[in-house]
């Protein structure tokens, strides 16, 4: 089919200003929504389009109208869990259309059609729907059949919106209630291997990719399009460590896909076999041994954290598809996870975040922790942080008790000594394999965190001189026996 408009990714982000707009659909003044639902193949006449209400050619220039776009999809691999994933692509695909602006999603959609597009011959929603359906089928070949119903009749949009709101609610519930233990397979993301060859992202219902872009549902959809592609399914295998989130299937997969760079990953652990990081994580977590707690800082915050380091400096220590203990790159969505670093105490171990990040994820912080996590307004240095944590009686002060199993995983600052905690006496006696590539840290033990190399102090104090590339010209040396 020939379209009277160009279709290209170059129109993504195209803004249509009010004076250039022919009509507005949905948006701040009119009801609107978009919906993708699965159906059985015999219900659908492929590529069929139905319009309820006035078409573009019947609309008055400069006015706003109600707007609903309902797609039904069918195919052997189509399933309910894919509906929201496919639905979100409506935004991407429609933005490829020249002179057609699509903003937001679900019941917030806001569309504008430009005057110049209408001038060039865009006069029917059928043209839009057909183009969108074509793109759906080209990009997602598991969609074998698709049809579309667009509605611009106010009453009909309002009526259907009520039903649709229920579907959205059900989906949200499903997303929130689906956990790692409920599924048979996780998904990998090896996209970043194009830049970080050993990085393997493991995407589970309780752990979004660390760039924030791919959820378990996204991974599932992508795996259906191409099982050998970048989001291959990872059979979970046997559960090795429930609390840390370790599975034999994940370990095997990680070993193979990282080219043997590492062979164990615990999905919800900060200190022990943490997930690897590529370079594009949204947030970096950092351990502060002085308070035995973890801070988080996001990409947009460029002031130093209480440990004196900026996001950029800390990020420079991790990444590259390596397991780096003491730092962890995550996606912002991981803060929503009920398993958020649960092995190491989760929110109870979290002591600091920039205010803007804390506000963004505030609803996911347990109520009792909301006031106990410092921001830059409370603490800019380790000393200020210590004061703050003492004042609010943060769990790290007295020792963190893990929610999941009630285990006390840190000793707290009882003695408040400047020296390191004793190396022996880990609280848990989990067997840990020797892995030379990484520094082992067990719960209860304060890891020696070394952002910069520290020279070995000379025994007995004093200064140790390391002389490099120095020419010492000594005319004569007299070597004599030392008196014993």
């Amino acid at each position, binding site marked *: 089919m020939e379209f009277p408009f160009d279709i*290209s990714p170059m129109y993504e982000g195209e803004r249509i200003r009010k004076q250039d707009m022919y009509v507005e659909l949905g948006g701040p003044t009119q009801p609107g929504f978009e919906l993708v639902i699965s159906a059985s193949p015999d219900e659908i006449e492929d590529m069929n389009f139905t319009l309820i209400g006035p078409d573009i050619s019947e609309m008055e220039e400069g006015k706003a109208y109600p707007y609903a776009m309902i797609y039904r999809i069918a195919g052997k691999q189509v399933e309910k869990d894919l509906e929201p994933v496919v639905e979100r692509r409506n935004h991407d695909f429609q933005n490829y259309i020249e002179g057609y602006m699509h903003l937001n999603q679900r019941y917030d959609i806001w569309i504008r059609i430009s005057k110049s597009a209408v001038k060039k011959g865009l006069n029917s929603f059928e043209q839009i729907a057909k183009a969108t359906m074509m793109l759906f089928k*080209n990009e997602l070949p598991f969609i074998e059949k698709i049809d579309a119903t667009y509605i611009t009749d106010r009453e009909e949009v309002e009526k259907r919106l009520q039903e649709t709101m229920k579907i959205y609610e059900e989906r949200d519930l499903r997303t929130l209630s689906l956990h790692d233990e409920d599924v048979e397979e996780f998904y990998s993301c090896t996209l970043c291997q194009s830049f970080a060859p050993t990085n393997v992202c493991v995407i589970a219902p309780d752990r979004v990719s660390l760039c924030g872009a791919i959820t378990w549902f996204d991974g599932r959809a992508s795996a259906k399009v191409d099982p050998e592609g970048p989001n291959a399914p990872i059979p979970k295998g046997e559960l090795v460590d429930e609390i840390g989130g370790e599975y034999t299937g994940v370990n095997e997969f990680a070993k193979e896909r990282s080219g043997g760079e590492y062979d164990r990953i615990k999905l919800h652990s900060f200190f022990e076999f943490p997930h690897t990081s*590529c*370079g594009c994580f949204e947030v970096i977590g950092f351990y502060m041994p002085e308070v035995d707690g973890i801070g988080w800082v996001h990409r947009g915050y460029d002031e130093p954290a209480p440990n004196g380091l900026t996001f*950029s400096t800390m990020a420079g220590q991790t990444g590259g598809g390596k397991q780096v203990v003491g730092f962890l790159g995550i996606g912002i969505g991981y803060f929503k996870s009920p398993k958020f670093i649960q092995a190491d105490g989760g929110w109870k171990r979290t002591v600091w975040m920039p205010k803007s990040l804390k506000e963004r994820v505030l609803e996911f912080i347990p109520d009792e922790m909301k006031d106990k996590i410092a921001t830059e307004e409370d603490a800019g240095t380790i000393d200020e942080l210590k004061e703050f944590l003492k004042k609010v009686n943060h769990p790290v002060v007295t020792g963190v008790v893990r929610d999941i199993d009630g285990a006390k995983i840190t000793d707290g600052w009882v003695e408040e000594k400047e020296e390191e905690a004793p190396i022996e006496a880990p609280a848990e006696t989990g067997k840990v394999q020797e892995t030379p590539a990484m520094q082992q840290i067990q719960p209860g033990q304060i890891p020696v965190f070394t952002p910069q190399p520290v*020279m070995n102090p000379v025994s007995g104090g004093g200064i140790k001189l390391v002389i490099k590339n120095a020419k010492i010209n000594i005319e004569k040396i007299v070597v004599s026996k030392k008196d014993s």
Partner: protein
Amino acid sequence: MALNLKGSFVLDELKNVQITIGKILEEGEEWDEPVGPTPMPGIADLRKWDHTLLERYEPFYAPMQDFCTLCTMGPCDLSSNKRGACGIDLKTAKARLVTIACSIGAAAHTAHARHMLDYVIEQFGEDTPIDLGPDVNVEAPNIRTIIGVRPRTLGDLKVALEWAEREIVKVLHSTHIGNEESLIDYESKAMHVSMCDHIGMEVADIAQIVAFNYPKAEPDTPLVDAGFGVVDRTKPVIVVVGHNVMYARPVMDYLEEQGRLDEFEITGLCCTVHDMTRYNARAKVFGPISYQLRVIRAGLPDIVISDEQCIRADLLEACSLMGIPLIATSDAAMRGLPDATDWPVEKIVSALINGEVPGVFLSDPEKIGQVAPIVAEEVFRKKDRTKLFFKSDDEFREEIAKCTQCMNCVFTCPHSLRIDQGMAHAQKTGDISKLAELEDRCIACMKCEQACPKKIKIINVIMQSNLQNLYAKTGMMRVGRGPIQDTEIRKVGQPIVFGQIPGVIAPVGCVNYPDLKDDLREIIEEFLRRKYIVVTSGCHAMDIGMLKDEEGKTLYEKYPGNFDAGGLVNVGACVADSHIAGAAIKIANIFAMRPLRGNYAEIADYALNRIGAVGFSWGPYSHKAASIATGFNRLGVPVVVGPHGTKYRRAYIGKPWKKEKWWVYDIKTGEKTYIEPAPDALLISVETKEEAIVQLAKLTIRPNDTGMGRQIKLTHYLELSKKYLGRYPDDWPIYVRSEADLPLRTKDELLKILEDEHGWKIDWEKKKILEGPIRPLDPGFNPTLVEEVFEKYSRK
């Protein structure tokens, strides 16, 4: 007798011993990154990498002449495979000339860096810390990678600069008669000396950012006025010209101290003014070298301060004719003027004002700061304001009347502008519009005037014909920001991998455009609209600020200055190009944690196989442009040059039909794998803007693109080819690894073409390619051309 003692010793006494320690480091200052294979490389150390590159991207020579005239045994005719008196053949002779050109370019930036570094160390101390802002952790990617040190202070830059100086001398030595026999080894030397150039640039720019407190990787730097018509002619005008801001900068300081900055116009040409705006956004930009004669012959300056590089060699003469005093400041261009550095300020001022000398050589920046405003004010007071390109309209018409249409001017013009037709039309009809049309294409090189038997002031005629438009040339340039932030690089990682950002286009370089300058804006905007990241510097960055669209807006006003999709990033003057190379290096460091220290080949190999960045110089002419481009080539970044770029005499063009040339080691499978020819050239010249656009889009393709990345790159390549050349390119199928690579909209159409015209096997039900591609798409593909890199990562 030699004594070899091992173990612990106790020294009871040290007597009459002198221990010289070069440097004392405090705990934690030492860089723990292990040293790679090639810190401070000599000519031979990266030769293997060059040979690997040049095996694939064979040098292609386009001699401007077949004779060699470099020694007294010549001239030697090298045509028809003849050798010269020294034994050299034509290709090797051309490779030698390229090496010489790159050496000149490298020497220019490196000497610039030397002047700058010595000065700022003297002024600010060698312990001045290098701080490029909170989001720049990898402060000197080129120095880290090539030299193998992590500079903490201005003083630390010395070691890098000394290395570059040493290597440039060695390469220059190799161009003496009777040295190299292999053209590939000359090309390797050209690459080596061009890598020195990138070090010189990085030292110079870091030094000035730190010492003069320029913007530090800030995306939203101020917009400054740019264009011929930007100055307020009711104020004295101080004009700086050249590439090294250290001499003229104190003018700003002096006037600021005096509280008189408002009473003057501080403007300039070329990179010096670029850097003046970075120092103080009150400075205004006239434009690049093509505006030097325009500005001087219009009588706009009340004083001109020149320093070095890309300044007309007839500057003094041009200024003298217009009664404009000149202060030459750099020992690179003393212009035959008396050295007034030791004269008292009053003596210099009076000599210039009274016309005792047409100009002075003055290398003391502080004195320049004091002298220039006083002289400018005095010249301004006395100046005849009516004098423009011509005293009167009659004089202008008389000049036109002299033309006999002999066409000597046309034949000598670099762009063959039809001056004769403009003159004839004006003579016959009185209508000067055809002459006016030439103005925008004219680079004001003055060759026409030299050729004219009637001694017509052709430049003045052209300028006068378009006077109104000339003065209406006012635009905005975003001030150079310096480096790219580490965090910006992290931020674009995901959209690059996901194909939302197709690549990085870097328009840098000079003004020898083939046609209308506005083409540059069109080319760049095409990529900005398509969400490429555009990074610019030097003359191109200035010209972009002078070109407006139909709505009167420059690209700087339309697109943001951050390193992100659709961002237009001005890094600054030529020497800031080092930050563009630096950004590529940082990608390898930040995403793959590839160690930088002395690890050049691995990083360049990473860039070649993964980073979709392409350099672009639409009007290259200088030797610096040659070395900048060749330096990018060694780093694995392809460069597209405009048609005059062929006069560099050499291109690096791959031959896609020679399948055996296109291979890599795949670390994942441990096998040597044949790949699609991506990128298919390292240095290539194009003739038209249409060709430029299509070529740039193609050269962002890399073997390691994800499916989504390749899909978006192919989409733009095909769309742009169709839009500008009217058809799909011939070679698009070789870039298809699987159906995931195909553009979304035209997937069916393209699958059909692959089946019908190329014999590929397609499963139409699943819309899957079954047979046809050179290799399948493998998400874990891990390519390298470097044997050592292959071995290093395969061992695990």
